[in-house]
């Protein structure tokens, strides 16, 4: 099981702050594809993924137990 967190626009779109995806492993790109399929309008091309609180690349592997987060364009400051 992979845990995913949603923030800002994506949290409002998903209607939740976090959930679990029932997979043993998948790539970052596969997680983004899953999110786009699950939540139309997700806009995966502008979303980064953090795995265990670090930015990850599309080919990086996510494993069961990892904590992921979808990071839409940031706007702190």
């Amino acid at each position, binding site marked *: 099981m992979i845990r995913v967190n949603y923030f*800002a626009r994506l949290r409002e779109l998903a209607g939740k702050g976090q959930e679990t995806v029932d997979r043993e492993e998948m790539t970052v790109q596969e997680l983004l594809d899953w999110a786009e399929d699950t939540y139309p309008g997700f806009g995966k091309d502008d979303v980064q993924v953090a795995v265990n609180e670090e930015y990850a690349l599309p080919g990086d592997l996510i494993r069961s137990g990892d904590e992921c987060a979808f990071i839409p364009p940031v*706007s*702190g400051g």
Partner: protein
Amino acid sequence: MKPFEVTESPIDPQKYADYVLHTGAGAVTLFTGHVREWTHGVRTVYLAYEAYVPMAEKKLAQIGEEMEAKWPGIRTAIAHRIGELHLSDIAVVIAVSSPHRKAAYEANEYAIERIKELVPIWKKEIWEDGQEWQGAQKKYPDKGADAQ
């Protein structure tokens, strides 16, 4: 006090300036970012900030490490507030001390640019007739030319 923190409480900037001051410091720069009333001709009623808190604090600390590598001898503290912020409230504070002033200015400005690139914090602007999440960064800010 944590030198790199995300907080729901009002920010007291002096606390961060005091934290970075030491007897080797000849200059301290303190930047505060405030909620402004007008942006592009639209009046802001308030802002709502949200963060991925544990990662945001790690990224603030990473920025501090980048700064201390680029400008040896400086000391740094950064805090960002989340939640509902109203006019003139402080959203972010950056304190930098340095033996000499030039590094204190440069490092401080570097910090705010990096915060806007890579720290997972989001701002929603709430106007009288609507609201919108802000943000339009590069897809991989952490891998950009500025990253160390």
